[in-house]
């Protein structure tokens, strides 16, 4: 990652890739919420950071002023010197179409409707046994040791195996998927070359899959998309590839981060561990609370038209970090917002977004998190962080532990 100047003032010069923001963001957000509820930075060509639930909700609902054409804040490439005759658009800078997440009304709705039936609770329920088996196999590999890395030996593999199964892709390609995600969402935030390379590789990979499904259809989502119609037309290959890229990216890093954060919490809270082991019926509430407190996903919007929210002006073309994690920590909406209460009954959290882009994978993610925790706690009811200082966190739009060494008691 490129060196970045230290932050002088979080309200006027924040940097969401600053090491402090990456490791311990909640205090910064709490302070901002009190002092400057819409922070701004000149970095990344201008970004706003609203930290109040009400403002984040208002922006998520206002698709007229806030566009999804860009949903990740990236370091823009320096201006290309004028001697390059034909300026190429920087790879993915503005038009990386992955419908429906990058679509605005009216294009968004049909692209979304298409996918919804495959992700209803009933459809997802049919994947539960498979997910349980995946988790069990993973635990078999380390259960007889006295330790493991809960992120790299466990959490990261669960969603990869499940989404590979849904898309009909070889499970053995998981390493490839994780590398692309790393290039796109982490390195690629600052390095355009990494970004472009991952895109090209994914493109090639999915084109091959599409060709093979055309000759030999399967029972997977790729086959489903090939047969799907939008406004009486089959989907273009570009649309299908964009959607596949989205499902792969949105399905893996997010859920892996959520499972990792749950285990990170449980490793440090013996009472919560015990309660979940002795009162398994609490699990649904606990999962919602972990999703609230450790919401992994921060989206972004581009200001399409100048407007004001929460009394603050938003200038056209600048970006907005849409921090569902910060919304979830707003004490106006969540009493004792900074405490993790695994039996919190009233919990209107926004971890899966708000409004028309509500996460399509939310039922899938909840199922995976629940099964992954249940299987883990059944086999490994008691565990601690091996060394708190060795835990590392991802930066960028998805936050979760990337190294999480634990010891079993």
């Amino acid at each position: 990652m490129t060196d970045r100047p230290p932050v002088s003032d979080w309200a006027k010069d924040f940097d969401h890739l600053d090491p402090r923001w990456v490791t311990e963001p909640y205090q910064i957000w709490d302070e901002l919420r009190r002092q400057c509820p819409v922070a701004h930075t000149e970095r990344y060509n201008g970004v706003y950071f609203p930290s109040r639930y009400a403002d984040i909700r208002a922006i998520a609902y206002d698709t007229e002023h806030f566009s999804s054409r860009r949903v990740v804040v990236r370091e823009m490439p320096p201006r290309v010197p004028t001697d390059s005759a034909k300026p190429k658009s920087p790879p993915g800078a503005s038009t990386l179409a992955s419908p429906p997440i990058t679509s605005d009304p009216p294009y968004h709705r049909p692209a979304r409707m298409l996918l919804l039936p495959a992700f209803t609770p009933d459809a997802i329920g049919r994947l539960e046994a498979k997910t349980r088996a995946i988790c069990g196999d993973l635990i078999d590999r380390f259960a007889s040791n006295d330790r493991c890395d809960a992120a790299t030996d466990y959490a990261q593999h669960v969603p990869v195996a499940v989404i590979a199964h849904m898309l009909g892709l070889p499970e053995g390609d998981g390493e490839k998927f994780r590398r692309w995600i790393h290039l796109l969402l982490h390195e690629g935030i600052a390095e355009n070359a990494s970004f472009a390379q991952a895109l090209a590789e994914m493109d090639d990979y999915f084109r091959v899959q599409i060709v093979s499904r055309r000759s030999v259809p399967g029972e997977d989502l790729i086959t489903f998309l090939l047969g799907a119609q939008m406004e009486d037309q089959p989907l273009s290959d570009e649309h299908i590839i964009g959607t596949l890229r989205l499902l792969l990216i949105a399905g893996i890093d997010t859920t892996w981060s959520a499972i990792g954060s749950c285990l990170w919490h449980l490793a440090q809270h013996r009472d919560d561990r015990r309660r979940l082991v002795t009162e398994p019926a609490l699990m649904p509430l606990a999962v919602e609370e972990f999703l609230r407190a450790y919401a992994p996903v921060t989206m972004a919007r581009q200001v399409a038209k100048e407007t004001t929210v929460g009394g603050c002006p938003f200038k056209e073309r600048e970006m907005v970090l849409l921090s569902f994690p910060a919304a979830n920590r707003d004490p106006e909406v969540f009493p004792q917002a900074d405490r993790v209460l695994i039996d919190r009954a009233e919990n209107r959290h926004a971890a899966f977004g708000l409004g028309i882009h509500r996460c399509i994978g939310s039922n899938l993610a909840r199922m995976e998190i629940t099964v992954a925790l249940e299987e883990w706690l059944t086999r490994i009811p008691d565990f601690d962080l091996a060394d708190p200082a060795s835990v590392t966190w991802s930066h960028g739009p998805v936050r979760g532990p990337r190294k999480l060494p634990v010891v079993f008691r």
Partner: protein
Amino acid sequence: MPEHKVLQVIVDPERCQGHNRCKAIAPSLFELDELGHARVVGDGMVPPGLEDKARLAEANCPEFAIKVAQA
């Protein structure tokens, strides 16, 4: 005998985005359509004993799509 106040749940289909919190909390009060969006079971009348579940569903809907009112 305590006086029974009959409640009714309503889902606003314009607001519902299919978070599925309501059905997870109160499966006998809410059902989902083929896209995963919620509607009330039957006429939405809350059977005695399920008032708390109805209120919890209302309080957990991220889109403020559920209303619980006196029938």
